[in-house]
């Protein structure tokens, strides 16, 4: 297991815990009716986006999915902005035009995924291509779940990335369920890496609930991608410790599975590692968690102050130029006939 500094260990723990607690707070806001629409969690999967995204450099890009909140945080998107987004306010990165984790921000190097799972993978290849085309030494981390790997787009994109040796790392959150469908109904092979074995890229399977294992595998994959060695697929074995979304009680998941995986909580495990290695003390961890709780309350307060979008801006941004936008939107209602 790789050696890490207390600074890096602290950042990893902070990121995982912040993700966990923000999602708890988001769920509360959802139950209170302050967040509407779909709400998705990466509970139990915090090590994956943390251990990988923390390796990215300023000009790199990430394409997180709906269970990768830590990637947004690590790339510098502020918690209050994320809460504002969830609450459909004007200060979110989509100005109320989209919800949940559909957050993109070019200045943070975050490329937004969309709801049709795996559609982001070909797009992520294009971002990686732009680095290759411009001879920039940058990489893309592209995230998706096990369900996405059944899509044709995923297979096309894996093949494409390998053929062009794109500087990209494909990171699968294999959390064993796609909504209510278990992986054995998703595929006739045992692993996601088996699916990709025909594409000609290095494949690696790691314990996705061990942040250091994810970190180490991603480090190697990023180094390969940066040096022109092409893509890698990392399958992170994990478990979704919630329903598909906040409205889903996950009654279809055997209770024993939840119990088994609760014992593998990536945060509790990493707390132990940090203490055993003398990198962080119990007191330091407690202080960090108290700070996270305060930061979240402050973020929610600030987000609630953000106004809702102005309905007068409805058409803004359909096209770059207002002239085309106006022409496109021209109908009897828009023109007041």
């Amino acid at each position, binding site marked *: 297991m790789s050696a890490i500094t207390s600074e890096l260990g602290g950042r990893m723990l902070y990121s995982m815990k912040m993700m966990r607690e923000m999602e708890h707070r988001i769920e509360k806001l959802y139950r209170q009716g302050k967040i509407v629409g779909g709400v998705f969690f990466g509970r139990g999967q915090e090590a994956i986006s943390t251990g990988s995204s923390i390796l990215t450099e300023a000009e790199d890009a990430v394409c997180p999915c709906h269970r990768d909140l830590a990637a947004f945080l690590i790339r510098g998107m502020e918690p209050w902005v994320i809460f504002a987004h969830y609450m459909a306010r004007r200060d979110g*990165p*989509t100005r109320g*035009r*989209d919800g949940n984790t*559909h*957050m*993109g*921000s*070019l200045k943070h190097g975050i*490329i*937004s995924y*969309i*709801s*049709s799972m795996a*559609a982001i*993978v*070909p*797009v*992520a*290849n*294009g*971002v*990686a*291509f*732009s*680095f290759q*085309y411009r001879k920039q030494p940058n990489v893309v981390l592209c995230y998706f779940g096990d369900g996405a790997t059944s899509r*044709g*787009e995923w297979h*096309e*994109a894996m*093949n*494409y990335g390998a*053929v062009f040796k794109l500087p990209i790392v494909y990171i699968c959150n294999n959390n064993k369920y796609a909504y209510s469908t278990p992986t054995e109904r998703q595929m006739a092979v045992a692993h996601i890496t088996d699916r990709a074995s025909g594409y000609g890229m290095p494949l690696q399977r790691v314990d996705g609930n061990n942040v250091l294992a994810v970190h180490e595998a991603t480090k190697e994959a990023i180094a390969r991608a940066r040096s022109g060695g092409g893509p890698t697929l990392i399958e992170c074995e994990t478990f979704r410790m919630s329903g598909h979304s906040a409205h889903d009680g996950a009654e279809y998941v055997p209770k024993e599975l939840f119990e088994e995986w609760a014992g593998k909580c990536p945060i509790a495990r990493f707390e132990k590692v940090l203490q055993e290695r003398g990198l962080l003390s119990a007191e330091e961890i407690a202080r960090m968690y108290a700070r996270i709780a305060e930061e979240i309350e402050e973020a929610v307060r600030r987000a609630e102050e953000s106004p809702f979008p102005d309905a007068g801006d409805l058409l803004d*941004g*359909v*096209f*770059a*130029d207002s*002239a*085309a936008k106006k*022409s*496109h*939107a*021209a*109908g*009897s209602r828009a023109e007041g*006939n």
Partner: protein
Amino acid sequence: MAERTYLEAIREGIWEEMERDADVFMLGEDIGEYGGAFKVSAGMLEHFGERRIIDTPLAENAFLGAAIGAAIMGLRPIVELQFADFITTAYDQIVNYAAKARYRWGAGVPMVIRGPSGGGVHGGPFHSNNPEMPFVHTPGLKVVVPASAYDAKGLIKAAIRDPDPVLFFEHKLLYRRIKEEIPAGDYVVPLGQARVARAGRDVSIITYGAMVFVALEAAEALAKEGIDAEVIDLRCLVPLDEAAVLASVRKTSRVILLHEDTLQGGFAGELAGRIAEKAFESLDAPVMRIASPDCPVPFSAPLEEAFLPNAKDVIEAARSLKAY
């Protein structure tokens, strides 16, 4: 000035844009050494190299998506679809990703998706379609349908320079049949400006793509009967030059909406709605639609001839409107 076919005009437009802007590149199936199924990119690999003329695997989702990602990062991809019919295999990427990215999170997608559409060459049900309407109906996309060599060059340049995703439907029947004197150097035909292909007083034939030539053929015949037809070539469906459409309707008071795409849900319905809303009082007769019947494009010559609108259809419609 130089004489160019419609196809050569497209090639020249792309070529000049690639010379002008190092961020412009093209990707698609068999466009490199082979020069593309219709040879639009002939000679480009030798000139621009494989970094900018990119042969892809046979996987439209993968290369459309890659173009979108590259465009978000500021490059200017041109995607060649081997046949426009195959656009259906990448529908999700276009309507869910490319069309919505700017609106959702401010990420512009300056890309061109181009390819041969249309029938009349016995291509059968999978190489003859006019797939414009799903994209006309998707907010965030522009749709260009050139009918002349001059426009093909000027519009492809405008499309490449446009900050938003543009679908550029070339008509394969016109590739080598149309030849014109066009300016040798740089010029642009702005998106959203229709063209009066023939001025007339009695009836407006509003159309686009290869049907412009059907309309012009009908207009010549009608002139001999004393019916003076005006032909409007829309050039772009989105953005639409609605003012040009309404101006022609107000001038002639009689309208034929003509397209090669099938009738139900075709662009003529959209035009008819706008004309009904905004120029109802100018009409002296019902708006008439002429389009292909609601049926797949058939292969065998007698079937395809029966399928495609022709000058005779237009002439008969014009006569009935005149007599109304």
